């Protein structure tokens, strides 16, 4: 009984072949059942996340959070879902109805699709395609599309503005994030997530701490969570791209956002924290599921911790941070990692790990110095704007700055 998932799958397969089905159809039915089981499990987890998120934010803000319905307020999300199901569905005037309805569906479906390639334990993984890392980026691109669809179809200036901000932010931060994914791929020499987890005898956060940090920042920005929550800045553009959505359609965006956060926790765990790996996880795969969930939940908690601790950045700060700091940094780390990987390929593994760690620490030291210098200069500039004025050559010809 160390591996109940495989046990159930084996039993089902034997039962189906007992019915006299062709092997091809059995594979299709097994995969379909796997998809349904995975999707249902993930969505059940999602309903729990509503409670977790509200409870944790309450604790960060020194409140109690939901505590009326059931023990510790555990039934609160069920009441929320019931309320959303009973709310009237309002379609704003002038909206493009088909696209308007499609956007929330796509927003949640893409997040569920991300789970197809994440290995959950030593024996349980949806699919072992050899391009798993890129698949994650591709599905993320579809998620970006759902946001622009929602913003455009709502026929609302704020929604369109929020969508534009969000998309500009998402595509900007996708660059450092994808390069950060490239570094575990270089270390594992494989794009399949199962291979990446299996090759982590030492967690990659030790070999590539900078990539891990950049991935976490990129995830925070992709999620649109503070300090990168410009797209739904309440004081500026009300709620962002989903301002015109109400009832269950808003619920789908909300559920998608929460589940996306947990998914990024899971991806961080897979790429940098060894996924399901842990003591005894190979012999008892059931333990692997537990380790994976604990690591994902921990990263989810870190993402929430960041969200509720930082103030919002301005849009120019957000873009500068991405293009002028994160991208050059991660490109440097990528080059050094690739060369070091080649040069140290003959060494014993502990020396390899040590070399990678030391190179990362050296880069981190220089980055720390540079950031400190920049921050001092920026403080002086803000205190005395005239002295540091910079004129960019295109400033006079670019579109007038009163445009949104």
């Amino acid at each position, binding site marked *: 009984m160390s591996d109940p998932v495989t046990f159930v799958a084996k039993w089902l397969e034997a039962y189906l072949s007992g019915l006299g089905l062709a092997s091809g159809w059995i594979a*299709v039915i097994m*995969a*379909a059942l796997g*998809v349904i089981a995975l*999707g249902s499990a993930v969505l059940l987890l999602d309903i729990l996340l509503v409670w977790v998120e509200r409870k944790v934010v309450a604790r960060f803000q020194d409140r109690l959070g939901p505590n009326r319905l059931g023990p510790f307020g555990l039934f609160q999300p069920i009441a929320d879902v019931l309320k*959303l*199901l*009973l709310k*009237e*569905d*309002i379609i*704003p*005037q002038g909206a493009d109805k088909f696209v308007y309805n499609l956007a929330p*569906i796509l927003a*949640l*479906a893409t997040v*569920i*699709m991300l789970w*197809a*390639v994440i290995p959950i334990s030593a024996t349980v993984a949806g*699919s072992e*395609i*050899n391009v798993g*890392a*890129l698949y994650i980026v591709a599905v993320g691109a579809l998620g970006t599309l759902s946001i622009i669809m929602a913003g455009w179809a709502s*026929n*609302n*200036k704020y929604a369109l503005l929020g969508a*534009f901000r969000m998309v*500009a932010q998402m*595509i*900007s931060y*996708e*660059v450092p994030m994808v390069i950060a994914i*490239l570094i575990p791929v*270089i270390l594992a*020499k494989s794009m399949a997530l199962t291979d990446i987890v299996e090759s982590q005898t030492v967690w990659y956060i030790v070999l590539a701490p900078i990539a891990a940090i950049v991935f976490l920042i990129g995830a925070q920005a992709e999620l649109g969570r503070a300090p990168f929550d410009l797209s739904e800045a309440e004081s500026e553009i*009300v709620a962002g791209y989903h*301002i*015109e959505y109400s009832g*269950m359609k808003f619920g*789908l965006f909300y559920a998608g956002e929460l589940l996306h956060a947990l998914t990024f926790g899971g991806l961080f765990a897979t790429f940098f924290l060894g996924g399901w790996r842990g003591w005894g996880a190979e012999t008892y795969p059931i333990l692997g599921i537990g380790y994976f969930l604990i690591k994902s939940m921990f990263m989810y908690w870190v993402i929430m911790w960041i969200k509720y601790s930082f103030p919002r950045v301005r849009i*120019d700060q957000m*873009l*500068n941070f991405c*293009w002028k700091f994160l*991208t*050059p940094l991660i490109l440097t780390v990528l080059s050094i990692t*690739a*060369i070091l990987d*080649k*040069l140290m390929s003959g060494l014993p593994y502990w020396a390899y790990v040590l070399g990678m760690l030391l190179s990362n620490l050296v880069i981190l030291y220089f980055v720390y110095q540079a950031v400190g210098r920049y921050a001092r200069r920026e403080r002086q500039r803000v205190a005395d704007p005239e002295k540091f004025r910079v004129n*960019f*050559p*295109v*400033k006079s010809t*670019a*579109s007038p700055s009163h*445009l*949104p």
Partner: protein
Amino acid sequence: MLQDWLFIGLMVVIAPIFPVAALIIPQLLAPKKPNPLKSQTYECGIETVGDTWVQFKAQYYNFALVFLVFDVEIVFLFPWAVALNQLPLYGVLVGILFIEVLVIGLVYAWRKGILEWF
């Protein structure tokens, strides 16, 4: 190889069914009394003025442009990263050269002020 993609293909078909089901239930349960006032666009407590299709700042296009070029080049780096074990040092350096050409573009955009928000 195609067996691996079977799961993904079924995922693409089945994953949207969950949210679609969640949208069908309110259609049966929820009240439905639309009226023109209710479906008006929300705009900070005032009636909406003019067209939704306001013209946007061109900076959004700049970032999408730089992103497009970076995205394409990064995708090409993935097969190189996977094959790193089978490459000589020379092959690794050639990949780095590919990255450096990318950096030239970034530096150019930076110097031109394309990455500024104003």
